[in-house]
């Protein structure tokens, strides 16, 4: 069974039982792997309305069929579970090296069930799998934990996935970190690990992975590598400046949310841009497993150093908190990585708290730290540490902006969809991207269908960002293709250079199938509908396909995109129709039968 390892681990932390189960190839191909297949397992094995932080929830660490292969960027894995932040299905995606190592150890997935009665970690060394005591590293930061576990493994080539103190304390913004700096960031997946007393998973794999069709695979790889090396974004823009090269283009387009989306243009954005990062703080580029792009940044400010910050992080701690101090942003990013917090949600929640403070709704005595003033570099750094440790008012922030804003009687001041904080693009100036935010199966997310590519940077072609025409079609296509790419186990950034045909060719050559491009698109549609079904059963229905009130009713007050609101009510019916759903936004029986997930 090429591409797939052919088996997965099932670990029950309540009983200590560890099983190795065979993967059904037909089922795997039907959902590709990774996000798609793991979502299927989750749907089959838990009640969608389960309490996400109870032992009845499961958490799946899933690779795709291209993870660990020779396909470029084949280092991705996903953490799939029910999100404690949004109540939706969560599929949080990360790079680095851990995913490829798991595949080489001989497993496509690890399904973790139940709850350990004391802190533990999982040690996977090829065929040997053990649940070990984590007393030594419980309470430790991510870098300390990684170092300790590598010492215990006595193998410097082992790879460590871990939560930080935030995950242990079940902060709803907690992420899962791997290889010290890479994050399965969104949806609070780290809190689910914490709820199970599972601190980490150490993996060492020595297996060799071979494609099903050697000659065909070489031809396809040569072709896709050529496209990546000839594409100006993947060969020049991303390697030279990293993701934060976007700061200026998004700001100049007038869609760079500032001060918790009260404005959409940040006059001093360039002080925090990729250009400035490269000029002042960049030490070196970094790359994940098998990646020819190397968009990662390693930066240093005084004695604070590490990977990042990425574009979204720079925005979440920068413009939307009104902060143009890049050194403070680098430090806040570092503390997020050490405590194991999602940088987007953490920064955006501080921004929400700053607006609540601005409106006089938070008692200064209650907020036991630096004043929550827009523009304060000290506030973003210190509050991040308090959130990570769940100390004092930081514990409230660590539950996310939706719960925070609701507590102070202003739920619409949380700039979130389905309780997941929105990332770094104001949808009032990018109509397709806003539709994608509102309909994303995991909530306010940019990487479920990155409409910024056509609407702002002109890839694969330039669309008018303010026009509604054809946007529902584009959003559906981007969402479906993204579901495919995630499930394959490679990086979304390849899509700047590659097409659906390329992904089909990679899959067929490595797995040994004869899927058509049309079938690949249909698989993306199937995964999307499966996730939608999970959410419906979990109680997150079409009424949650919405945007914060500010974005649909308050025009952007100034800057290049002044005067625009998001026109979601006009777009949503067209989107439902394009999806083959009924007018209420529910998948029809015919649609589900067509996708064979009825």
């Amino acid at each position, binding site marked *: 069974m090429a591409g797939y390892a052919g088996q997965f681990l099932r670990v029950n932390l309540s009983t200590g039982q560890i099983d190795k189960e065979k993967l059904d190839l037909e089922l795997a191909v039907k959902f590709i792997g990774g996000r798609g297949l793991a979502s299927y397992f989750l749907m089959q094995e838990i009640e969608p309305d389960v309490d996400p932080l109870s032992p009845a929830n499961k958490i799946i660490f899933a690779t795709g069929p291209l993870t660990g292969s020779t396909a470029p960027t084949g280092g991705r894995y996903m953490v799939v579970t029910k999100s404690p932040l949004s109540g939706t299905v969560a599929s949080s995606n990360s790079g680095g090296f851990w995913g490829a190592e798991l595949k080489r150890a001989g497993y496509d997935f690890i399904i973790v069930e139940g709850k350990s009665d004391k802190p533990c970690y999982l040690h996977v060394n090829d065929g040997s799998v053990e649940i070990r005591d984590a007393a030594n590293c419980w309470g430790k930061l991510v870098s300390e934990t990684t170092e300790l576990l590598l010492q215990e493994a006595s193998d410097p080539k082992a790879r460590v996935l871990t939560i930080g103190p935030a995950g242990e304390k079940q902060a709803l913004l907690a992420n899962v970190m791997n290889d010290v700096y890479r994050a399965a960031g969104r949806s609070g997946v780290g809190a689910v690990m914490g709820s199970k007393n599972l601190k980490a998973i150490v993996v060492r794999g020595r297996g060799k992975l071979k494609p099903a069709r050697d000659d065909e695979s070489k031809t396809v790889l040569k072709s896709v590598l050529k496209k990546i090396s000839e594409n*100006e*974004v993947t060969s*020049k*823009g*991303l390697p*030279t*400046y*990293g*993701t*934060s*090269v*976007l700061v*200026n*283009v998004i700001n*100049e*387009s*007038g869609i760079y949310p500032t001060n918790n989306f009260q404005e959409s243009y940040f006059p001093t954005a*360039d002080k925090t*841009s*990729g*250009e400035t990062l490269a000029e002042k703080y960049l030490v070196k580029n970094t790359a994940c497993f098998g990646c020819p792009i190397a*968009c990662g940044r390693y930066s240093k400010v005084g004695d604070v150093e590490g990977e990042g910050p*990425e*574009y*979204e992080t720079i925005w979440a701690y920068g413009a939307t908190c009104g902060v143009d101090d890049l050194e403070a942003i680098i430090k806040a990013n570092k503390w997020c990585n050490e405590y194991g917090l999602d940088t987007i949600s953490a920064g955006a929640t501080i921004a929400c708290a700053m607006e609540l403070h601005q409106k006089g709704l938070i008692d200064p005595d209650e907020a036991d730290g630096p004043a929550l003033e827009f523009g304060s570099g000290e506030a973003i750094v210190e509050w991040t540490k308090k959130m990570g440790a769940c100390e004092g008012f930081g514990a409230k922030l660590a539950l996310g902006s939706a719960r925070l804003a609701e507590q102070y009687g202003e739920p619409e001041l949380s700039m979130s969809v389905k309780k997941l904080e929105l990332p770094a693009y104001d949808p009032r100036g990018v109509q397709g991207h806003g539709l994608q935010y509102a309909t994303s199966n995991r909530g306010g997310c*940019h*990487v479920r269908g*990155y409409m*910024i*590519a056509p609407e*702002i*940077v*002109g*890839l694969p072609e*330039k669309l008018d*960002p303010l026009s509604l025409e054809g946007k529902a079609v584009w959003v559906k296509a981007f969402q479906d293709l993204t579901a495919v790419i995630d499930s394959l186990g490679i990086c*979304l*950034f390849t899509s*700047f250079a590659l097409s659906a045909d390329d992904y089909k060719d990679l899959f067929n050559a490595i797995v040994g199938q004869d899927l058509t491009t049309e079938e690949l698109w249909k698989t993306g549609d199937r995964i999307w509908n499966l996730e939608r079904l999970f959410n419906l059963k979990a109680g997150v229905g079409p009424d949650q396909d919405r945007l914060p009130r500010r974005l649909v009713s308050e025009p952007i007050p100034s*800057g*290049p*995109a*002044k005067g625009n609101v998001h026109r979601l009510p006009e777009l949503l019916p067209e989107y439902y129709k394009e999806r083959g759903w009924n007018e209420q936004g529910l998948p029809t029986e015919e649609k589900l039968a067509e996708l064979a997930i009825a």
Partner: protein
Amino acid sequence: MVVEVRLFASFREGRFKEKELELPEGSSLGDLLARLEIAQKDAKITIVNGSAVSAEHKLADKDVIAIFPPIAGG
């Protein structure tokens, strides 16, 4: 007419970050790119007063023009 020109990423190398330039009346974005010695095919994202425009776009006094090479991220 006087316009404000902002250059980004690799276009800053050997040029400038931000500058006011005087242009002949009726100048197009393409004329500006030629003056800056930036090939039209390399200027993948060109924004005038917040809206993406093409090389044929006629510039006006006090326009703010942002010029980017091919970039993306997210």
